[in-house]
């Protein structure tokens, strides 16, 4: 273990001042120090995507990347996607399309989908596959997840008109 430092994190719009070794993976800080348990530990090697958060709008894995790398960045976890009790368009589309089964990969999938739609409001199937290509789901076979992301894109485009 390295030396603990004071680290400033901005997560879901709130500033957090924490004290820890900057090499500690962000995921463990989120889960163990900040009570944000939405992001999940799947592999610990950044091979499955369950731990994804948005970092400055980009999907970033957190199970092996030290919290120090996230200083000064704008971090959004799955808890930050919804607005109070109102689900975001992507979350609602996952519910409507039946895209979650066990729910374990779902937070990471939502983050990857959100990052995609923020960048590309009209993704085709290949774009969606690319965007969630680093997120492994064992339950769904991906079909309903891809359908959900298409649905979210449609709903967002309609809302924007």
């Amino acid at each position, binding site marked *: 273990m390295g030396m603990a430092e004071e680290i400033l994190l901005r997560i879901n719009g709130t500033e957090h001042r924490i004290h820890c070794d900057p090499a500690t993976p962000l995921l463990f800080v989120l889960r163990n120090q900040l009570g944000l348990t939405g992001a999940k530990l*799947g592999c610990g090697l950044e091979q499955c995507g369950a731990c994804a958060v948005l970092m400055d709008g980009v999907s970033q894995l957190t199970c092996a990347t030290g919290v120090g790398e996230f200083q000064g960045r704008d971090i959004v976890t799955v808890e930050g996607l919804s607005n109070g009790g109102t689900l975001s368009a992507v979350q609602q589309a996952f519910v409507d399309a039946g895209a979650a*089964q*066990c729910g374990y990969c779902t937070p990471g999938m939502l983050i990857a989908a959100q990052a995609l739609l923020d960048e590309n409001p009209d993704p085709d199937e290949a774009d969606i596959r690319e965007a969630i290509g680093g997120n492994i789901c064992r339950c769904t*076979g991906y079909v309903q997840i891809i359908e959900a992301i298409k649905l979210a894109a449609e709903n967002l485009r309609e809302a924007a008109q």
Partner: protein
Amino acid sequence: MISQAPNTRYVARKRRTQEDKRFVTGRGVFVQDIERPGMLHVAALPCPYPRARINNIDFSAALAMPGVHAVLDGAELAAATNPLYGGLKTPGVKWRPLAFELSRYAGEWVAAVAADSRAIAEDAMELIEVDYTPTDPVIDPEEAYQAGSPQVHPEHGSNVLYDGEFTWGPVDDDFAAADHSLSFRARWHRSSTVPIETFGAVAEWDEGKGILDVWASIQMPNYADQIAGAMGIPLNAVRVHQDVDVGGSYGVKRGIKHTVLIGYLSRKLERPIRLIEDRLDNMGGGDAHGPDRIFDTQVAYNADGMIKSLKIRALDDAGAYPGRGPFQLGKPIAAIVGPYTINSVHYEAISVTTNKTGQVPVRGFGQAPTNYMLERAVDKVAAALGMDRIEIRRRNFIQPDQFPYEQPSGTKYDSGNYPAVMDKVLALANFDALCARRDEIRSEGRLAGIGVATCLEPGGGNNMFEYLMNPAAEITTFMEGAEARIDGEGCITGVMATTTSGQGHETLVATILGEELGREPDDIRVIHADTLTAMPTRSPVASRMAIMLGGAITGAAAKLKAQIMAIAAHNLETPLDQLEYSGGDVSVRNDPSRKLTWNEICYIAHKQYHRLPEGAAPGLQAQHVWQVPLGGQLPDADGKVQLYPCFSFQAHIPLVEIDPGTGKVTLLEYFIAHDCGTVINPDIVRGMILGGIAHGIGAALYEKFEYAPDGQFLSATFADYLMPSTFEVPLVKDTEHCTPSPLTSHGQKGSGEGGYLGGPAAVASAVNDALSPRGLEIDQLPMRMSLIEELLNGTP
């Protein structure tokens, strides 16, 4: 696309699931999210050798490390606990959470550290000094079967855990009378379900109450029983909290060794103890691998393509600690002839132990490898006769007017329409155009192939395969219980008796309760009782919950409705047969002004004893325990017995292209038609089937737990094991057919396993179709790129 839509309001209608809202907001509560005051964390030390004698363990340095509370070795644990439950009669095979005297596979846990954090426990683990004497392992299952091979469990006396022969029907006569026969070997290599959430558990011994509380990522029957048995405490001293969300399982979440380990530590230290596997623990040391099977099969068939008889020898490698693994050779007896009119079967099932991590039940309980072998057999007969692969299946199909159909091993298939499902998948695939597309790719000098495969999915469960393999296990119950309550304000609560790992059981219970009581399912709360308050259950295995939990909650709803009607009859002073129930209100048939509303009836039931019929108990609550249909019988004099009640059917048609240079397989298209009777929730069933296919694609092309010939484990990460991602799994197109089961509450059958039963066979059929112009064939799974490349180009 449902051919016979049931007359229902909620069942079989598209509805959102109850569970998804908590998952999309990140508010699922998984075992990693369980915090207990004063909780300690455990890490376990893996043995580096495939087989080694443990001479001495010196953990004094680890114990001295700040933050470490205990170091436990196998000797201490073996003295204080009983061996873990094994299903076969093999008293010389002792499975323990930590290796004792002899370590039996690379990765087996030999010691455990309990500390203030997992990080401290891992650091302390590094300080444990183990003095080993490595000895020769046995890795190859055929070598293990030979007398004189190194023994994994010397006390057992050989490596053969089970070797049984079954003959159903006139096999020798059928072979003698058939026009032709062929034989082949098919190999299903070791893989598993590998959920994204590893196994984890928290145990907390309460000395005041004398109760061990357990929170776990679990999916298995009799978990509490096995904890109690190993710890030597009464069953009612174990309370498993079943409202923990389980992050995928598909059969394998059976961390009994983990739980006994932390249960013991919790009792010893009087602290809550948590053990969550990391990915390496899970892949290499979690005792969670699946079937690893060699089939030697002979097929007798006639010139017209009719398959008459099978002789099957299945040799399965159960690893070092078998648990219930060997019984995965038994369940396939339920559908040993698949959907075909094959007249007789000889089946030899052999389970051996080797120096690998242990085998547990995997999606389909052994049926996926067997169906792969069976469908290879059908394709080979077609090829030998120059017959179309669809035509040969049509000729051999059991016909719709033959149900219930008793197949040779004694199981009756409940219902089905296999030709109709085949027609639907061909129409969905636009089969002629699909063939034209394949042929066009071939004409451009590339390799392409279409797969054809079917499968039966036995659903509902039953324990009789265990009896067939071990008659000491005279267990004929395979029940499921449920409870339903309506409170004084009219709110409904369903209580299920087990955990859920993604199958949407809360939605299932709410949908059926809503249907039966005419109330909105979204307003129905569904909870998971803990094991001390739960009704009897056999857990969500065996594609059984739609059938069994569905039947149990239907029974509870019927009892509630009877209570409601009795209250209404008493208060309206009208006989039952003149009352009408509608949406929870009860009125007099010819005088609708005389009526009691749902809220009035619920209020009377809970608050107004003076208005209850004589003898009625206050409140509205009902329990129902349902025995599995057709279960409960021991085998007849010929050894025939019903295994599983309900049989779903699927037909799969994929199109693949193979890069002739690299051997890389690309799934261009994948079509499936399925028939699981009445679908309770269409999105859930669709997700089960599509997910099963993706899992099957993994088993067919990528996934493998590889051991080096010297026994070292080579597949410790997702990148080595090869989990399929969006780049490997195509957008599967699906359609349904509905042949209701006559045995279940709403005509439903199972759907959790079929995609994984048919998928591997279908992909194997497609790859072999692509290779056939080169005169090549592959009869092993996975068919990894390197294997195909070597076959095509001769360069390893």
